[in-house]
């Protein structure tokens, strides 16, 4: 033991007492260096708690243009070993989002790696609105609609975003002017 303590003496000053958790430090670094595009907005219910926030995506192109989609992010102390938990807040009509707000995005589950960051997730979510993917459905009816009749699907998207019903299910109004 003595040997190590002597080595430590010779080495001199270094880091000490990191009271802030590794997850908090990573998130602080991630969020303060984000370059948010015009289509994204973030909100913190409590600015002292960086680990819980909302992201609102307002696509400026594609089938979901004109809508505004709020996601909740919850990051636990095991980040970045574990991915953030992301849910879509309003009930929306989308092939890759189910009625409970679960989102099918590979990097939120099976393809998550600690080298990824919040930006990767945010970009991935935005992409879901530009290119909804009928092959990985969470809302099977929506995926079926997209596959079988694209024009009809687009009409359904518009009706759902205005708060209407599709396939007997009523969706939340998410039009941007509704805010």
């Amino acid at each position, binding site marked *: *033991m*003595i*040997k*190590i*303590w002597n*080595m*430590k*003496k010779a*080495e*001199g*000053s*270094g*880091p*000490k*007492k*990191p*009271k*802030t*958790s*590794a997850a*908090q*430090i*990573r998130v*602080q*670094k991630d*969020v*303060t*260096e*984000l370059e*948010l595009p015009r289509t994204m*907005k*973030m*909100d*913190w219910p409590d*600015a*002292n708690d*960086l680990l819980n926030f909302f992201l609102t995506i307002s696509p400026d192109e594609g089938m979901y243009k004109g809508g505004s989609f709020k996601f909740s992010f919850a990051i636990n*102390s*095991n980040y*970045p*070993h*574990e991915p953030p938990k992301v849910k879509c807040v309003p009930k929306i009509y989308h092939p*890759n989002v*189910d009625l*409970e707000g*679960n*989102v*099918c995005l*590979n990097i*939120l*589950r*099976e393809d*998550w*790696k*600690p*080298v990824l960051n919040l930006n990767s997730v945010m970009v991935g979510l935005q992409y879901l609105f530009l290119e909804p993917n009928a092959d*990985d*459905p*969470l809302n*099977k009816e929506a995926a079926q609609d997209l596959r079988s009749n694209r024009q009809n699907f687009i009409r359904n998207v518009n009706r759902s975003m205005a708060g209407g019903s599709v396939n007997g299910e009523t969706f939340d109004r998410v039009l941007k002017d509704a805010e």
Partner: protein
Amino acid sequence: MSMATQQTQDWPGRYYHIDQILDKPGPRTDPDAFVGGDTARDFLRNQCKVLVIGAGGLGCELLPNLALSGFRDIHVIDMDTIDVSNLNRQFLFREKDVGRPKAIAAAEFVMKRVPGVTVTPFFGKIQDKDEEFYKQFHIIISGLDSVEARRWINATLVGMVDEDDPESLKPLIDGGTEGFKGHSRVILPTMTACIECTLDMLTKPTVFPICTIANTPRQPEHCIEWASVLEWPRVFGDAKKLDNDDPEHITWLYEQASKRAAEFSIEGVTWSLTQGVVKNIIPAIASTNAIVAASSVNEALKLATNAAPPLQNYMMLVGTDGVYSFTFEHERKPECPVCGGETVNMTVNKDMTVQELIEHLQETQNIQIKKPSLSTSSTSIYMQAPPVLERATRPNLEKKLSELVPSGTEITVTASTLPLKLSLRLTYS
């Protein structure tokens, strides 16, 4: 401890073999570090206090190995109680122990079997113990199966290193196994690569694509994940959080998963598989545990006595194809959020505002941080971006630091010009 009591506990030849190693240097012994003889024996047997974290598969091997190597003041902490399924590999436990705390049963067994050794058990979570508790030990050995617990003890031990007190450095020997694979590694907090430096090396829990579990389950595991990831939150919402340690919760998941499995004609959903999937239980093999624990205890013996140089610093064991092991040196990561980054101590005027500190950080030679964001573990002091956080923290710019941050509290500074962060400890004049 008096010599008289020691002698009644010892018998001729008890330490004959171990003393061969302690009394004379071997071919690879560091000549500067080797003291040997009575000094090494005395430290090992009468002074060295070692803590074992976890009394499970690895812990049940670590404890007897330590006791038989001559460590006599051993402590063990574990939050679990003994389950009947542990008895197939956790050799210190008997059927009559089922339901008892692992730490207590393990301590009793080793003390009964190895006279003169004290094993002090703690039944509880490592997170409930403070720095004062960890300070009393010389060496800490972990035999954990949770990444979260490893990261916690690692960060705690790194945080305890006091530059003015070399004895505050507690070597951490970490062992881990997964089926035929395993590792043991030696971490000298702040001196060698820590757990967090090598986080991307750790095995990720197995997760399945959410659309597979929602639509096209093919394996029993898919049905169990469906029950825990989708069905539980759908039924209970935020009102009731899933507790993986609650048998009733596991039973509920098991029932839901069984129904779904029947619907898709999938076989193999059982209660214990449900528990295994939800808790991410990794298959444990007794012999892998034995190899890894033996290596970890050898490292403890080397560190305590300097009889041989310690592992530098990571031993990987691959038992799947013959038995292969490979030792290499993990390097520290400058951007490690736990052991990386500099700590700067600064004395500032008690009237200094946050704004003035930021200007100071930007202007001071050898710091010069562009656009720093500042926080403590509980407060966002000032965030440069995104705009909404900047606006929320802007009122703090005018405030006096001494009102926001108690003297000695660590401030985490991040900026794009830093690899990760700088830690700032302020005292006020």
